[in-house]
């Protein structure tokens, strides 16, 4: 049997929950420079199931938390709108949005969450991109914009249908939050920013809090009968079922938001004809592509049979032609759908749902159906 298991590198950075992961018997790996659990003793499939059935606790402290400040909210929002094709100006207090920073060429520099807290903006960036994001924000902003990387903050996600009931035992007010809303709350004596959001397609919360308080809160949460710790393995299969992109695989500087099927994240006011149309990096390219349609598109893919098709598998129009028409960017076994699932890019002619393409696996071409995303319907809690 030949395979490579990546051990934890000694130089890997630790999150505030490192000791807890080790105590819980996690298999640790290095991910984006951090020692993180890929799974605990129950294994990836059980952790996946548990999250969809009850509640999973995820350490996502490796992600970048960046605070951006200016003299006024208007000034701050205008500055950010030069870097992102989202509606920042219209963000209400405590509301958060999914969006992305774009490159000059119209690619995706990173996909991020932005949250308005008072007149400041908090940004959550991918671990692998946070240094680049902070540098980008600084080099493209006027001097009156302050960018602070919150290196002493932790981020913990609690995901799954039991999440609300669990957190209500700490503070009843979490009930009032709707999807993509955020509020500062006291959790048993610990001050935390709590938002109703996540990366699994389930109802759930993300807790941003001081690193020093993270271990206490995490232990209190996993002591609950409904909560199990969940590692990166299940995090990946859960987000894939939910049709959510992983930066570095499904989206990169080489993919545009339109190709990535993320047009829905660009609101009308930033599109051609909108009141604040364009004005962000790569706008001409992106908005033109939005109007004309991209030459390739990210789609959901369902390989026939039981063999998973992973990132890098090439897709063809039929069983014999030499030229590939696409490639898988994420793939694996979808535990909740009971079969292999994937996503990837295909030429526009093959992007319609129910089109059959062929994935080449170990020299053999096998049928793959183009399907709508997500594979598992989202269960987000809309506002009360």
């Amino acid at each position: 049997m030949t395979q490579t298991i990546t051990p934890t590198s000694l130089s890997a950075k630790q999150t505030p929950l490192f000791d807890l992961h080790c105590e819980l018997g996690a298999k640790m790996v290095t991910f984006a420079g951090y020692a993180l659990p890929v799974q605990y003793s129950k294994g990836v499939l059980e952790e996946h199931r548990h999250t969809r059935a009850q509640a999973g606790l995820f350490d996502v402290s490796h992600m970048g938390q960046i605070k951006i400040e200016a003299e006024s909210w208007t000034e701050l929002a205008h500055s950010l709108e030069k870097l992102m094709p989202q509606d920042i100006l219209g963000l209400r207090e405590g509301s958060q949005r999914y969006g992305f920073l774009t490159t000059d060429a119209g690619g995706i520099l990173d996909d991020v969450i932005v949250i308005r807290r008072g007149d400041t903006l908090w940004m959550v960036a991918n671990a692998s991109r946070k240094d680049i994001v902070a540098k980008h924000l600084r080099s493209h902003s006027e001097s009156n914009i302050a960018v602070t990387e919150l290196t002493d903050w932790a981020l913990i996600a609690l995901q799954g249908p039991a999440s609300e009931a669990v957190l209500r035992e700490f503070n009843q007010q979490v009930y009032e939050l709707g999807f993509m809303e955020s509020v500062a709350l006291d959790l048993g004596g610990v001050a935390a920013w709590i938002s109703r959001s996540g990366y699994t397609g389930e109802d759930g919360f993300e807790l941003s809090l001081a690193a020093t308080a993270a271990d206490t809160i995490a232990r209190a949460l996993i002591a609950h009968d409904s909560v199990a710790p969940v590692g990166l393995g299940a995090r990946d299969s859960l987000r894939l079922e939910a049709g959510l992109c992983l930066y570095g695989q499904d989206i990169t500087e080489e993919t545009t938001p339109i190709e990535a099927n993320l047009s829905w994240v660009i609101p009308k006011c930033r599109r051609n004809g909108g009141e604040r149309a364009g004005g962000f990096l790569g706008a001409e390219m992106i908005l033109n592509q939005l109007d004309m349609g991209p030459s390739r598109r990210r789609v959901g893919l369902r390989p026939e049979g039981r063999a998973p098709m992973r990132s890098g598998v090439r897709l063809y129009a039929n069983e014999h032609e030499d030229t590939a028409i696409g490639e898988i960017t994420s793939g694996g076994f979808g535990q909740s759908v009971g079969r292999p699932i994937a996503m990837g890019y295909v030429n526009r002619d093959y992007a319609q749902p129910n089109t059959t393409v062929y994935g080449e696996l170990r020299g053999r071409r096998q049928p793959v159906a183009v399907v709508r995303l997500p594979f598992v319907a989202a269960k987000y809690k809309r506002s009360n």
Partner: protein
Amino acid sequence: MHYTEEHEWLREEAGTIIVGITTHAAEQLGDVVFVELPEIGSAVTKGESIAVIESVKAASDIEAPLDGEIVAVNEVLVDKPEVVNSDPTGEGWFFKITPSDPTQLSGYMDKAAYLEFIK
């Protein structure tokens, strides 16, 4: 029982050799979600990749540990790949080989040597 450095175990049974992966290998792989088996009747060469095992983490090749012919495969694994995790050295066997050169077996480790190998 014999063990290979590729973490396969080999057990002799009435002139054939049953092959599977070790408990250590199954633990390292994590949850197995797919197994592709060789064809019955196929002639295999020692070191040749003849089966595939996919876990939630990665795909791995299973090599033929001996020259010979595949005389049986464990069809249970096609629909229930998780048996590799629950019983790797029993119900989770992969295939049976009739070896053309049984002396090849002597090159493999015994249990004590394998346990030392994975330390």
